[in-house]
């Protein structure tokens, strides 16, 4: 099986489809919800409000330092649930596979999804695969949908953000964006760029005990930190003021961005959260977050103000204040 490639017949619904599911997916993903192989999964849910989120993953390259499209497809949806305040429980997945994808790659991705799900404590309970003709997709597209349950007392929404609240980020920004760019374009740096791709259930767990003192959480994926801060400012109607020299950025990301004319604040992250918390608890929450491996670099960025409503200001190291806007157009590297 491992030496072959995915063929149109693997999507026929016949014997070959069955073989693909049995050998690639069922074996690696076995759990009591999936194993009966029904048309859908029958789930038990603990009490509480249910959160649901979906995301599709179309990343090139499929494998990159720090992760792969399989890992990211689990982390992405798990993190969206965590950002809702939920404990992620179940995931579904649907894959659109381009004819000709090496089966070894598919198997590697299935194993990566299984391992990531296991670490995140979620079960892959139902799935679907479709095969399309060569040229109709870029090797593999993966969708995952997840549900989780929100414990009592947790309510993360931008409308709960108040003046004086503190803004936290759980670690250095821009790593994923740079890792993908470097891999895609064959750029090599003295220190390799590694994606921060990770499931952030540990962060969710730590924050639960702070209940209503955590106001809102969001993962700064596409568009990066600057975009998420702008979204939060607009949705809360508050101003966000961050200090440039408090924003954690690794030397390799900073150096590469300087060289290429890119801004790390707009580069994607796949293992970070922006968290808005009550000022009284901020220091305690940061210290607690730092005990979670994925949030070891948690840092205070700034605070929420009433003005300028709906905008983000950045205080430069030199003491000037400028507007940190949304990304305009494509982020293209410069010439010299």
């Amino acid at each position: 099986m491992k030496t072959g490639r995915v063929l149109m017949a693997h999507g026929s619904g016949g014997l070959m489809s069955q073989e693909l599911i049995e050998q690639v997916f069922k074996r690696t993903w076995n759990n009591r919800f999936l194993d009966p192989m029904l048309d859908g999964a029958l789930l038990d849910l603990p009490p509480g409000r249910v959160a649901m989120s979906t995301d599709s993953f179309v990343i090139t390259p499929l494998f990159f330092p720090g992760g792969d499209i399989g890992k990211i497809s689990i982390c992405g949806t798990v993190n969206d649930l965590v950002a809702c305040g939920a404990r992620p429980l179940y995931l579904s997945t649907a894959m659109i596979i381009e004819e000709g994808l090496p089966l070894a790659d598919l198997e590697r991705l299935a194993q990566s999804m299984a391992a990531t799900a296991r670490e995140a404590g979620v079960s892959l309970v139902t799935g679907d695969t479709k095969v399309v003709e060569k040229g109709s997709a870029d090797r593999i597209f993966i969708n995952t949908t997840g549900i989780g349950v929100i414990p009592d007392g947790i309510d993360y929404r931008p409308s709960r953000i108040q003046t004086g609240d503190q803004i936290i980020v759980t670690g250095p920004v821009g790593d994923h964006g740079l890792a993908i760019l470097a891999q895609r374009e064959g750029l090599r740096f003295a220190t390799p760029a590694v994606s921060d791709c990770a499931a952030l259930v540990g962060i969710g767990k730590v924050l639960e005990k702070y209940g209503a003192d955590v106001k809102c959480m969001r993962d700064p994926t596409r568009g990066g930190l600057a975009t998420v801060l702008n979204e939060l400012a607009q949705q809360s109607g508050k101003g966000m003021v961050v200090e440039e020299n408090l924003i954690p950025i690794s030397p390799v990301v900073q150096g590469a961005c300087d060289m290429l004319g890119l801004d790390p604040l707009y580069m994607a992250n796949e293992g970070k959260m922006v968290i808005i918390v009550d000022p009284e608890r901020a220091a305690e929450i940061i210290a607690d977050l730092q005990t979670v491996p994925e949030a070891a670099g948690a840092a205070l960025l700034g605070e929420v103000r009433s003005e300028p409503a709906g905008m983000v200001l950045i205080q430069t190291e030199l003491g000037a204040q400028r507007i940190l806007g949304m990304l305009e157009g494509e982020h293209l590297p410069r010439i010299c």
Partner: protein
Amino acid sequence: MSKLKNYQQQLLQAIKAETRQVSLMEVCGTHTMAIAKSGIRELLPPNIKLRSGPGCPVCVTSQGDIDAVIEMVQNQDIILVTFGDMMRVPGTRSSLQEERSQGADVRIAYSPLDALRIARENPSKEVVFLGIGFETTTPAIGITIEQAREEGLANFSVFSLHKLVPPALELIFSDSEIMVDGLICPGHVSAVIGVKPYDILAAQYGKPCVITGFETLDILEGIYMLIRQILRSEAKAEIQYRRVVKEEGNPIALQIIERIFKPIPARWRGLGVIPASGLGLREAYAGMDARLKFKIREMEEIPIKGCACGEVLTGKITPPDCALFGRACTPLQPVGPCMVSQEGSCAAYYRYTPASERKRLDENR
């Protein structure tokens, strides 16, 4: 860290102590970006003005040249390889990005050597590298051309729109409409050309030149060194960016440029045709000159209506003075190249808006 911060504040105070009207030009687009990003522009007193110069290679490329590139992509069955910045630069009727969406094969490269790889992989296709940039970029493209010759890659050529910085600076100093008291000179270009070209400029026009690095501290120090010279009525070329720039520049890089390119007249946006300010391929490399290979004709300069990029590039106005800035011309819908490039003054002013200018922004949007 706090020592550095202290020194920055000291420099800022020393600069603020100057009460005369001083107008300095930051030649390089990377400086323009750094000045806007760090907030230096906003923190300087109103009597010290910073003007942007012609130091963004994309921005100074003339409209006619951009149109010629687009026409080449439309008419020839080629793969065009370019640096990312050029993709969105508007030509008179189209842009490379638009051409790509309509089926033209235009690829973004990070190094000119990528173009060689593409040429090797596509032996039945003509691969043209769009050579744009100043003395910093040109040596790498020179090496690429030499390597293509060594490998005998007959399907590779370069459309050279390379330019030289000193001739443009000379024009800036000699233009009576452009009132510049001193130049913040580009760090990376100078790492190649060294201090000599500025010695000549400073002596001839009696104006100080300081080769400056790109960190906030570098720029403050560069400004301070210029003001100190003005205060002492001196006019010499100095190097602030000593950790990178040597007096003699980079002789090896200069030799590569000399070996492969020859000075030719070039048209600059905003400055017009400047003799010996462009670089064309020498006769020995004529086979790799895309202009000759594809019989590229000179295109007419059709100015973009209302666009003041030319005035911005010569420091005659600042971007917000342009009627289109932030209204009809934004990074999403750029009218002129200065709003497109990562090095462009308009993009710098637009992206890094001081908080104090929020009102203006609100009115425009």
